[in-house]
């Protein structure tokens, strides 16, 4: 494999990991606050649809982004209502949200565009274009650094850079601010926050809504940046892979970056080499695509370090007598 191919694959990995990273960070906020979320998939899907629809109708990717976030937030609110206000089962709520998104995107898509669930193709300002970083073209010919800078680092959409910037931001927010301290406390022992006179409900809602915003970004990226429009079930399990990455990263922001990069890379390699010939054996791309799930099971099994979720995760908070 030559250097150019490597750059191409890594570049593709960066594109493919971006929605995973955004959704993974989304899940991180929610689950660190003690609200399990297996509805990342549905929220992304809803956001992808809303973003593509509005972007097409208005011709503005930015308005599309706003719509995507709004669509995802609406589902987050439902999750908050079920998981926090009515103390329902968070897993069941997540399952329901995934179905709700799958059904509603098709119903609304068919109603608005009559294209069997897809939106018309987006072009021009209705998509997030690629940003060429300063000096990218000038440096292109410099050996090694040139291709890395011009081919890998430069030339992504704004949302890619945003996703990467969110990693240190999330770390800072969680571990260096009052909000982060309270959010983590609510996920570990909500009674500690409650007895300190702080509302558990409000912090959990805040976390769930942040999760909605980030899923909105992830979905909008899918339909208005990496692709040019929405197609049925376009998330294709990415919400679950993001969930897998979250477990892989043990609910921490920096490892989340590496986990999603790994899973993005696997997808990129599978795309490029449908049957990867390793000399001794040929690895089917199907296997590569299933790798994130297999790796997650191995991590969950505790064979490679233990993944301990936030202690109060999945439990509705009920004030004790």
């Amino acid at each position, binding site marked *: 494999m030559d250097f150019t191919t490597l750059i191409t694959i890594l570049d593709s990995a960066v594109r493919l990991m971006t929605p995973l990273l955004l959704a993974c960070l989304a899940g991180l906020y929610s689950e660190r606050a003690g609200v399990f979320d*297996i509805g990342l998939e549905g929220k992304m899907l809803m956001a992808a649809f809303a973003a593509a629809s509005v972007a097409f109708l208005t011709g503005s990717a930015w308005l599309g982004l706003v719509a995507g976030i709004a669509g995802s937030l609406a589902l987050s609110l*439902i999750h908050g*209502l*079920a*998981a926090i206000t*009515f*103390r*329902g*089962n*968070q*897993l*069941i*709520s997540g*399952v*329901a*949200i*995934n*179905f*709700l998104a*799958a*059904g*509603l995107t*098709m*119903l*609304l898509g*068919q*109603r608005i565009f009559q294209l069997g*669930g897809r939106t018309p193709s987006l072009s021009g300002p209705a998509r997030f274009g690629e940003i060429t970083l300063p000096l990218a073209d000038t440096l292109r010919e410099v050996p090694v650094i040139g291709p890395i800078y011009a081919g890998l680092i430069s030339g992504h959409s704004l949302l890619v850079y945003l996703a990467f910037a969110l990693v240190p931001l999330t770390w800072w927010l969680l571990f260096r601010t009052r909000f982060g301290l309270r959010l983590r406390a609510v996920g570990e022992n909500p009674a500690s926050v409650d007895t300190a006179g702080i509302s558990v409900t409000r912090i959990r809602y805040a976390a769930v809504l942040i999760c909605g915003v980030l899923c909105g970004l992830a979905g909008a990226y899918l339909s208005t940046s990496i692709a040019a429009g929405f197609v049925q079930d376009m998330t294709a*399990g990415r919400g*679950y892979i993001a*969930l*897998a990455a979250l*477990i892989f990263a043990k609910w921490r922001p920096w490892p989340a970056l590496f986990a999603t990069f790994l899973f993005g890379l696997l997808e990129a390699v599978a795309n490029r080499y449908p049957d990867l010939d390793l000399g001794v054996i040929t690895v*089917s791309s*199907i*296997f590569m*695509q*299933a790798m994130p*799930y*297999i790796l*997650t*099971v191995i991590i*969950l*099994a*505790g064979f490679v370090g233990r993944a301990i*979720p936030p202690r109060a995760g999945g439990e509705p908070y009920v004030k004790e007598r």
Partner: protein
Amino acid sequence: MERMPKWADLILTPLISLLLAFGLSALVILAIGESPAEALKVMVTGSLGSSYGWGYTLYYTTNFIFTGLAVAIAYHAGLFNIGGEGQAAMGGLGVTLVILALPWPHWTLALPAAMAGAALFGALWALIPAWLQARRGSHIVITTIMFNFIAAAILNYLLVNVMRPVGSMDPASASFPAATHLPRLSDLALAFGITWGKNTPANITFLIALAACFAVWLLIWRSRIGYEIRAFGRSEPAALYAGISPSRIIVATMLISGALAGLMAINNVMGGGERLILNAPEGAGFIGIAVALMGRNHPLGVILAALLFGFLYQGGGQLALWTSIPRELIVVIQALVILLTGALDNMVRMPLERAFAALSRNRG
């Protein structure tokens, strides 16, 4: 504390949740500019208005009974088996391997063997998550989700690369020999001189599903292991105190649950498709969640809920055929049923409890 009579808890709450789900669905239909009344009419005529419609309705019902029972029994042990889809897919693989392995002379011989294959493969696919939960404490919800995807990948690989007959472009197994075709319910009706449900895939698996319901009822409320499953599901420390082994219960329950999900393949692969195709369960594993929730994890409730979803599924197909409402409407209804009966249960229950409390105060 508990003022609500049992019947209200068992019947009234799910009924109100269901009505709410339907009400919201009607709003959705209105929102996309169609008439809910018209939609309901199309669905009812399409699924219940003819023996043809009934045939399909019962065919889907059969699938959902199996997956609903699978979710329900796991729930009694406090486990949320979200992997019915993968287990049903692997069950299909089991059926196919059994049928294609031997030249079965008659379906009566093939059926028990295929059932064993379906149950075995479904159970084995549930065994690994169960073992990981029992021994390593890995959250079974996440592992069963992952196993759904892994099952899909395996079947995808096998159907494309291994099981596809030479010369076929279709990612599917060879068709099953005619001798192994299960009798359809229409054949059964004809034997009594009645023309019923011609050209529908409803087959004798429906009767097996009903028998499975009875068996599960016996298991949960009459057998010793059922008693232990229920005890463990309600209190693990108490189970330990009584000498009930948590690992044994987790593994046994998930084996039974996986076997039930796998058995669905008798209906859709052996009885309906008569060959194995990609994504054979078509989401029935997930509908099982809605069915179990609505049926309050009781086999009788599962039958009723499965019938409802069978009706929705068949009716939804008819909608797509006769109106401009896509069949995904039923996915929305399914989502709302899961949401309202499963996650927003308290939203319905709390006001009801208050109402009953007020009622008993007035009477007292």
